């Protein structure tokens, strides 16, 4: 046997290792635990619209979705109608992170398909994406009113995800918040 004939086999085994590795890392049912319940990473990036600089403070205040998207990502277009619906009908603000993209193209894209975002952060170098552990676009984060990441979803947001996962989570967050408010008002009365 000539040793060179082993090259295809070795190359293939290497590929399998990568695939198996990727497979382990990215079981879509298991959330990357490192990010859940962690505060949203700090950043200072340009806004897609206008001159202002956006920071983490802009995202804090109410329960919101943060959506990572790009014009080169066909799936972002697939989930776009659902994002529009959520922002209009469900009254949940959505912040966009325009990821590894050209801002000019991104503005054009939003003009063409309508803009579901309250604000759009320009992450053209992908720095914030790295901090967030973004795998690709689209990805969507659910943050609470204090800017803590509650949930992360890889892939498109559709009605099923909204009904089965996002809406129950948001309701639960709201309940917890109300209880807290309730509790603190009671404490106020007692004191």
């Amino acid at each position, binding site marked *: 046997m000539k040793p060179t004939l082993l090259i295809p086999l070795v190359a293939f085994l290497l590929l399998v290792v990568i695939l198996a590795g*990727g497979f382990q890392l990215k*079981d879509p049912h298991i959330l990357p635990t490192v990010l859940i319940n962690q505060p949203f990473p700090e950043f200072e990036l340009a806004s897609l619209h206008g001159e202002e600089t956006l920071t983490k403070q802009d995202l804090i205040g109410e329960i919101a979705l943060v959506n990572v998207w790009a014009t080169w990502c066909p799936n972002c277009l697939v989930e776009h109608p659902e994002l529009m619906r959520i922002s209009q009908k469900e009254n949940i603000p959505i912040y966009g992170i325009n990821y590894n993209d050209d801002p000019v193209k991104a503005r054009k894209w939003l003009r063409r398909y309508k803009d579901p975002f309250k604000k759009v952060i320009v992450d053209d170098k992908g720095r914030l994406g790295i901090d967030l552990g973004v795998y690709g676009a689209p990805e969507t984060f659910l943050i609470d009113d204090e800017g803590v990441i509650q949930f992360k979803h890889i892939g498109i947001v559709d009605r099923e995800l909204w009904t089965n996962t996002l809406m129950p989570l948001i309701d639960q967050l709201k309940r917890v918040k109300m209880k807290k408010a309730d509790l603190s008002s009671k404490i106020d009365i007692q004191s």
Partner: protein
Amino acid sequence: MIAELGHFSLILALGLAVALTVIPAVGVYQSRPLLMNMSGSLSAGLFVFVFISICCLANSFLTDDFSVDYVARNSNTSLPMQYKISAIWGAHEGSFLLWILVMAGWTLAVSVFSEQLTTDMRARVLSVLGVLTVGFLLFILLTSNPFDRTLPVFPMEGSDLNPLLQDFGLIVHPPMLYMGYVGFAVPFAFAIATLSTGQLDSAWARWSRPWTNVAWAFLTVGITLGSWWAYYELGWGGWWFWDAVENASFMPWLIGTALVHSLAASEKRGVLKSWTVLLAIFAFSFSLLGAFLVRSGVLTSVHSFAVDPERGMYILIFLVLVVGGSLTLFAFKASKIESTADFKASSREAMLLINNLLLVVASAAVLLGTIYPLFYEAMNDGLKISVGPPYFNKVFVPIVMMLFVAMAISPVSRWKKTSTERLLKSQVIPFVSALVMVTMAVIVFAKSIEIVVIFVNTIAVWIIISLGRDLYQKVQHKKAKIQSLFKQSMSYYGMLLGHFGIAISIIGVVSTVYFSEEKDVRLEPGDSLTLSAYHFKLNKMLRVEGPNYLADQAEIEVRKGGDFVAILRPEKRFYPGAENTMTEADIEVGLFRDLFVALGEPLDNGAWAVRVHYKPFVRWIWFGGMFIALGGFLTVLDRRYRVKASRKVTETVLVGTAV
């Protein structure tokens, strides 16, 4: 009951597949022709039971049996009949059943059309196909059973087929694609069977070639249809997205293209044999890899099937066994293969080798771009990145450009040795005339002069001129020129047609990319816009009702310089069953341009966001694809693949007269 029958026939099919794997193999081992010949009837039985199974699933769809989970998830009582049938392969489980049916079909075809094979070889090939079928059947039975029930509580109404899939495209695209994917199992089986005997002669290449060409032609049709479907259905006028799943079908196609060419060299000249065997293994391995990427959920894509890690793990293990096993076999046996001939650096063999290398590098580039995110993640402790179309355009385009230049030159090259000087000299006139023609055409017809467009189209026209000249040279010295046209082999015409198709596609791609125009506007009824030389006027908006949807329909009148061109009726549909809206574009189709109109969102005052595209030469992309496929099918009609069969017939006739 019927669904259980379908499940049961799948289990029986598994039993037959196991028998098909074992019995002929034992027959080969013990040299018992009786056992070897059982492979024929076992293949037939396997096909029959898989067919019964898919018919049972069809029955469940047609009778709206929502107690079957798969039917409940993918159908609805108001779904039109043709989509109830095609919904069988509308999602993961059923589409894999179709995959198995196609596999059983190819196996049956091999057992029927195998007069040329020795009994021993036929048994080996069918045994390999048998073991692959066992793997597929185990996969569907263990992880993806389409016959699962939701009893005792089942829905009264199904949640409807995804509206994107309620289209002619779903009816034809997956079956064609699977014919190609799974068809590569046949050259794979030939390669493994031959390696197992240790005797690689050109007979092996002659057996494999027609099967490979047919599978490859089907895959070409499948990819072309997919591209066309995406163009008109997804509503944003693109025709290729470098999406992970598109890549998953494109890689086997590239490797298959290399295989089709290297088989020619192996058959005609007995060279590059071990390389060809390796390609045969790789073509099918890439099909399996594609199945893994699509169905495991490691990569996200528009084609997202329901994701289940268990399925991914199963396919990965299957992939390791099949590909790892065959590459190990290759490593041990391929050293015995010897080339029976030699060739020079400027011969046709060398040109084919260049073609092969470029195609393999191109598919490696696509593979890298597709799995790079995973690779990076593994290397960098979970850091995640992604590459988009920019990567593919930068890396892939230069490689295929080199390939196209080689394609223009190659018809002139001859087997064994061609003088380099003659090769280059002969290209001067075709190249210069192509350059002149294209430059003139661009100056006269195009709005702007783009160097890239001139360059790429020149190569395309150069290819066509070379092909035409080659055909002319083949007949010019003959007395009866027309008759000698008929005497050329079918595989030669297949080659001409295939290369011609590539040239047509190149023209389509580059013209669409550089000269497309589009506009997004707000239109109220009565408003109009102008794009390129066309004038679009929104006459009115209508409400229409389909079988399972409601739609807003626009009536848009298109005129060019005052002359009426067409009325276009794009729709925005709402499907209550799936709670989904869909953009249904309307297209005015033409040989030299498409006019594509899609409705965006409703705005205030009865106005609508409307998008209009002008897409020159876009049809050429798919015409080219169809020519390529036709070329692939044509080669199979070549007389030499039927030689032995006809000889057999003569023998029987002789015996008959003797009696």
